């Protein structure tokens, strides 16, 4: 379970850094939103690393990841924006993160039940 948690922390930091990079480098618009989403990812990495309220925080991170993924997909389908290599990397990282959070959450709940 520990390895799952540290993989999650790594993915959260990676996604946050990609978001910061995208906000800084993207010559488009609404780039400030990427700073906000990146900041939340880094904050979430700290929460997951510290294992604070894991049953709640892991579920929240999972939902947050899916939420952002859906927002991006919906906006991209409508407007054609956010379809570039950096955004694809960011969303691939988020997809792996979501799968990782499912495994981590299952593992956390299972260990609690065993106790």
């Amino acid at each position, binding site marked *: 379970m520990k390895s799952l948690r540290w993989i999650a922390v790594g993915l959260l930091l990676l996604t946050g850094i990609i978001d910061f990079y995208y906000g800084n480098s993207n*010559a*488009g*618009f*609404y780039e400030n939103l990427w700073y906000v989403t990146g900041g939340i990812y880094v904050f979430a990495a700290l929460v997951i690393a510290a294992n604070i309220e894991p*049953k*709640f925080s892991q*579920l929240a991170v*999972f*939902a*947050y*990841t*899916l*939420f*952002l*993924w*859906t*927002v*991006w*997909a*919906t*906006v991209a*389908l*409508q*407007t*054609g*924006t956010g379809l570039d290599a950096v955004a694809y990397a960011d969303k691939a990282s988020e997809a792996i993160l979501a799968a990782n959070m*499912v495994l981590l*959450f*299952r593992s956390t*709940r*299972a260990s*609690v039940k065993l106790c």
Partner: protein
Amino acid sequence: MTGSGFGKLSTSKLLIAAAIVAIVSGAAVGLGVGYVIHYDAPTTRTFYLFDRSLPFNETVFKIPHDTWVPDTITVNKGDHVVIHFLDTESTPEGHTYNMDPPYTFDAVVYNNVTQGGSVAGTFSNVNRVIFGQSQTATITFTASWAGTFRYYCEIHQPTMTGYLVVIG
């Protein structure tokens, strides 16, 4: 927490419920954002830029009588900007088109007013281009930085100055 309703739900049900809430709310927010930004999405904006001589005596006023028309170009950040410069002056004099940093541009200068004639020069990633009498040009760049930036003719300062306004 295990005594609450949240704790009593199975892991799978919790994950499914969280996924449904996240996806539904994400789609709702995405549709809203997509609707709002649809009108601001980066696009190609084309402008025609002319040189104009105002009817006053330069010697008396001690400033050039040349100006740009229009003297303000407003675009959104991320827009691809195409400027067709047309020399409509009757007096034989050259001009330059300069842009304030960090902007640079690509330019194709033509030998006559129709922009269909021979190409006098092609320039890439420059911040200054020179037009001879009756030459015209197509200037292109991407509005990557928000703010207000001068475009000007360095020969006819201070009057031949315009401003690119990029809304970020």
